[in-house]
């Protein structure tokens, strides 16, 4: 049995939607359990006194990365078949900044706003409506934005592929970055929590 199951034809389009539904429910559940249904908790990371978002997200990245690496290594997962988002460097950098500004101003990112709405938070709902307004505006402006939106090669670029660094070294470097980042985050939290308490 080799994954990705969808690519190997173990289930079709309809079942994949059901699978996606349950994965989405699980994702929302853990966001809420991590306290990410609260805008205050989320925005604290920008004041550097609570870096839980950074820690949770980086933990998820490291866990998934190690899981994918080992599953690929023992042959249970065909990594060449895993979907990678095509790289459009400039549009994605600008998009990231727009999302970041929205995160600071609105207090949520798209996924967490849905989790907040599900627990009955009105600010989450308003944020969700904002997402739809943004999507509508983007779609209306798309003819003007299309050139920039598709600027770049559109190839799925990976760090090992682009820089010729062996895969294992990238994995180890990301783990070290995470552990170093967690240590640094702890120091920052202590410093800024004390400052906020004064």
């Amino acid at each position, binding site marked *: 049995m080799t994954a990705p199951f969808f*690519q190997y034809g173990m289930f079709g389009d309809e079942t994949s939607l059901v699978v996606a539904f349950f994965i989405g429910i699980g994702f929302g559940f853990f966001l809420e359990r991590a306290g990410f249904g609260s805008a205050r908790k989320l925005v604290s990371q920008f004041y550097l006194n609570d870096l839980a978002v950074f820690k949770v997200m980086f933990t998820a990245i490291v866990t998934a990365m190690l899981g994918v690496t080992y599953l690929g290594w023992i042959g249970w997962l065909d990594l060449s078949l895993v979907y990678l988002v095509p790289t459009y460097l400039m549009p994605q950098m600008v998009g990231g900044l727009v999302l970041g500004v929205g995160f600071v101003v609105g207090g949520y990112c798209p996924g967490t706003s849905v989790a907040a709405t599900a627990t009955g938070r009105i600010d989450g709902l308003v944020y969700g409506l904002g997402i739809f307004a943004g999507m509508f505006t983007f779609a209306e402006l798309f003819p003007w934005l299309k050139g920039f939106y598709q600027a770049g090669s559109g190839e799925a670029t990976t760090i090992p592929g682009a820089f010729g660094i062996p895969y*294992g070294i990238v994995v180890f470097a990301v783990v070290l970055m995470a552990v170093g980042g967690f240590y640094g985050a702890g120091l920052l939290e202590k410093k800024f929590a004390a400052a906020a308490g004064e």
Partner: protein
Amino acid sequence: MRNWMSMLTLNSKLALGAVALGAIALFATPYPGSTVTLDAKELALTVSKDADRVEAPELAAWIIEGRADYRLIDLRSQGEFAQYRIPGAVNVPMAGLIDAGLRRPEKLVLYAADAVRASQAWMFLRAKGYTGAYLLKGGLEAWKDQVVFPVLADNPTAAERTRDEKRRSMSAFFGGQPRSASSVSAGGAGMPGLVTPVTPALPAVAAPPSPMGGAPARTKKKEGC
């Protein structure tokens, strides 16, 4: 050792575990690269039973019926594809075969400029786990011969008449013209079976817009936290 471990918090232990796994991953080769596995027995069985190919008239019938449960792949160059294509075909040159977004369980019917090239693509796809890959039997030549410019009997029997009627309507659907058996054998000089039939220039057949075009089209997916 035990004392030292017990002094660590749970977070530190998890971090140590991650570093250890990361260090082992230095030696990992998770991409299998270009190696493929082949079930030789299964392939041999498929080939010997002729279960690896689709006849041209069968494909024509699928197109006329408007069946959508298969994908027709034209492996020739973009120029050749632009000149003539079987209706509904999408152009995927050999080099782009794996990146073309084809799905493993999909029924794929392949044809190329020559049978060898199509067979190579078929073997390549089968080796990569595309279990629904089929060859168009006889390739584009068979398509011209049997579907677009089919041969009709000169003095048909009742059974042949029914068959010819079918061939005539099929040929008309694809913008072709049937040929008579006598005109084909006239150029044969005693060896009608071995002579390539003289086919007029193929008419341009407008194919539906290809979802892949020359290069595989990429769709952007939205993802976020």
